């Protein structure tokens, strides 16, 4: 998430706050929300202080050139920065519910931790309470959100009640969904508009289990997918394109076509070069252009089974043109960048671009700006 410089006073505690300004504060103010009022001038700061003394204790001033009205912020661990937990104008919104996980994927971009982190759910709910407008879509991520069990369901219901038009996407490895008790806790009577994003890395148990570094994970994920289908839940399968996965990608796609044709979509995703992916660089760093034929063949197989697919995190210049229509702008706004080489590219506006940390990590393949669009 974004971390930005800002000035604020002593009363600006660890609580989640919505950024606003003096003009709109009156219309948004509510007793159960916390506000950070953007100020520039001394006069404005004084005005906020007056409000505080006249019992508007949930209002604090903040000075920043980069914050926007509607941002949701908390102070960072120092007194000169805030974390932007949510921004209205972003294309992608996500709430991280836990850092704990029951798998240990080779390319995990967010390596799990073991300690109790239940504060993360509280913060997520707080963020939801502070939304100024209902986002079109919001992702619930982890760690593994199903470790929260029935609390995950409460989070979903909380969002659905307050923002009935918001589509919720839960990123899960699906393993705990093999457990009928968990299925009941989370799926029974579920009314919310949810889809489930579930990774699958192999067409045989030992291939998938190797990538997620856990015995028995494949079998649990398969059972989980069948339980989602049983509850008529829409599924996106997610395949991260690291070397051991790419090696058997066409077979994996054929497996999906034959066995899981009920999935709504398959996402083929370039690896995010951070976290464990850096530590396991020799398996995770690939030159995607060298695998273009394999990716195209895999897409062809998905076509045969009429399973829709989408490519994520893959710059257009790395892909054969036949796959461009399936490529999406998938990288979260705050970590999405383009390289200098992209300046002259004619398809930059519809390209996924790169992860911000590609310089410390790697790019999916050597960038070759597209200079003109052939018709």
């Amino acid at each position, binding site marked *: 998430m974004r971390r930005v410089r800002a000035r604020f006073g002593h009363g600006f505690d660890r609580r989640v706050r919505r950024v606003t300004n003096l003009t709109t504060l009156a219309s948004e103010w509510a007793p159960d929300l916390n506000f950070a009022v953007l100020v520039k001038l001394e006069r404005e700061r004084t005005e906020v202080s007056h409000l505080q003394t006249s019992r508007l204790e949930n209002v604090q001033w903040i000075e920043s050139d980069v914050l926007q009205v509607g941002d949701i912020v908390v102070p960072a661990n120092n007194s000169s920065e805030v974390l932007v937990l949510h921004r209205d104008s972003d294309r992608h919104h996500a709430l991280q519910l836990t850092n704990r996980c029951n798998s240990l994927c080779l390319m995990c971009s967010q390596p799990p931790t073991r300690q109790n982190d239940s504060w993360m759910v509280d913060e997520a709910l707080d963020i939801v309470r502070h939304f100024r407008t209902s986002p079109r879509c919001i992702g619930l991520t982890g760690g593994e959100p199903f470790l929260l069990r029935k609390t995950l369901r409460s989070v979903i219901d909380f969002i659905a009640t307050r923002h009935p038009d918001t589509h919720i996407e839960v990123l899960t490895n699906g393993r705990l969904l*093999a457990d009928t008790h968990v299925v009941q806790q989370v799926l029974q009577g579920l009314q919310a508009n949810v889809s489930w994003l579930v990774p699958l890395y*192999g*067409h*045989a*148990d*030992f*291939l998938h*289990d190797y990538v997620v570094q856990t*015995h028995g994970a*494949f*079998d*649990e*994920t*398969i*059972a*989980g997918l*069948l339980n989602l289908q049983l509850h008529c839940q829409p599924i996106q399968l997610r395949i991260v394109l690291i070397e051991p996965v790419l090696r*058997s990608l066409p*077979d994996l796609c*054929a*497996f999906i*076509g*034959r*066995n899981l*044709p009920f999935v709504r979509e398959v996402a083929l995703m370039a690896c995010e070069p951070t976290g464990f992916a850096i530590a396991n660089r020799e398996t995770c760093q690939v030159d995607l252009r060298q695998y273009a034929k394999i990716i195209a*063949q895999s897409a*062809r197989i998905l*076509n*045969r*089974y*009429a399973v829709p697919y989408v490519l994520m995190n893959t710059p257009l210049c790395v892909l054969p043109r036949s796959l461009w229509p399936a490529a999406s702008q998938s990288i979260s706004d705050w970590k999405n960048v383009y390289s200098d080489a992209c300046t002259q590219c004619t398809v930059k506006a519809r390209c996924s671009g790169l992860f911000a940390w590609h310089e410390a990590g790697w790019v999916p393949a050597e960038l070759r700006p597209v200079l003109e669009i052939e018709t």
Partner: protein
Amino acid sequence: MSYYTPVALPFNTRRLSDGSILGVSKSGDHAFFSDEELAWVHCSPTRLPLERQAELSSRFFLGRDRQAPGSQRLLLSRRAAKRQTIEDGPSLHAIVPTLQCAHSCRYCQVSRTLGGHGHTMSIRNLDMACDAIFQSPSRALTVEFQGGDPLIRFDLVQRAIERISARNASENRHIRFVVASTLHQLDDEMCRFFKEHTVFLSTSIDGPAVLHNKNRPIPTRDAYERTVEGIALARKILGHEAVSALMTTTRESLNHPEEIVDEYVRLGFRDIFLRPLSIYGFAKRNERHLRYTLEQFQEFYLRALSRVMYWSQQGVELREIYACIILNKIMSSFDGGYVDLQSPTGAGLSALVYNYDGYVYPSDEARMLAEVGDTSLRLGCIGEQLVTLTNSQVQQDLIRASLVDHTPGCDKCPYNLFCAPNPIDTQAQFGTFSVPVDKTEHCRRHLWLFDHFFSWIRAADDDLLDLFHGWASIPESAK
């Protein structure tokens, strides 16, 4: 044993003419083996390369020596999907309002000439048949009018469609009406009625005019011309896709496979169904003149099919329905529900025929047998409850005679998830169900078809596989 030590799962095999061994697993997935590799799979699968182990386990040839509940459930759901259509209840309801027909085709199984009496359904039975259709739990229903030529009694067709549509206003089923006819009687008024009720027409085209007119004689010798006129009229008012055609392969047809396919292209049809002649009913009397061998049909079929492929490669949209049915069985996870290849049989379970004579039959073939005196396949009278028909001795015998796991020959056949005995066909051929399955024409023909398509798939390039998969997606008109 390590966590991932592979063990062979049960599967059936069969040697193909190219020397390879085909295996089909319990999920309906297939793999080709050499003799040596097959021995490894059974005796020491750990010796197989890891990539092959992965492939064979993803296709349910290899499993683990431990509980794998997820994979086990996946296998069960795959098998259930293959036999799905039967569980939905009867979805194909054929009504035979009359046996009258202006044609006197030599191979015809049932029809009577015009003016014959007693070959038309009573109004009471027609109404009861229309009501009985809704006893089926199936959400999607096809109601097909057969004959004779139903348009000779358009009044009955009209009455039935109106009655069913009126009832459906509250039932909200998805109903598809089909009228099978020569289209000689078709006029503007009928077309407008069909348009209003979204009725599809299914006609017969046996090939070019000379062949068609020879197969389907009428006094004016212009059966072909009048059917083509009917097609044009129907397309003009109902739209191009509203008319499909079926062909019957006669002995005369055997020498003209390419011309027959070209005729379908010329007439703008997108489907052709290369069916062998069923020697039922009246056709049986002319058997000596009509019969040809399976080998003759095979040669005809392959020549005609390669002509269809030729047109496909030219960019002409044309599918061969028999190939679609076989490919659907082999390549798709969703079964198209073709009645003759279901276990238990689709006859009576997914299809019912309400005949002009007031009886309900399990299939078209069964009512044809009745015309030559074998009424043993009647399920009951029109008006009886569906549950009574399903529980009838005849239906229970049909079910028992079509269970692949209990039929010697089928139980060890690799195609037993795709295919099944056809007891009614057996009855027509031998006068009884109790005949070893491998003696039946049905078994020999389908073994050959599956063998042939598997060999073809084994040698196919990507373009051909794309085409095959396209054909394998559920062919609606094949039901």
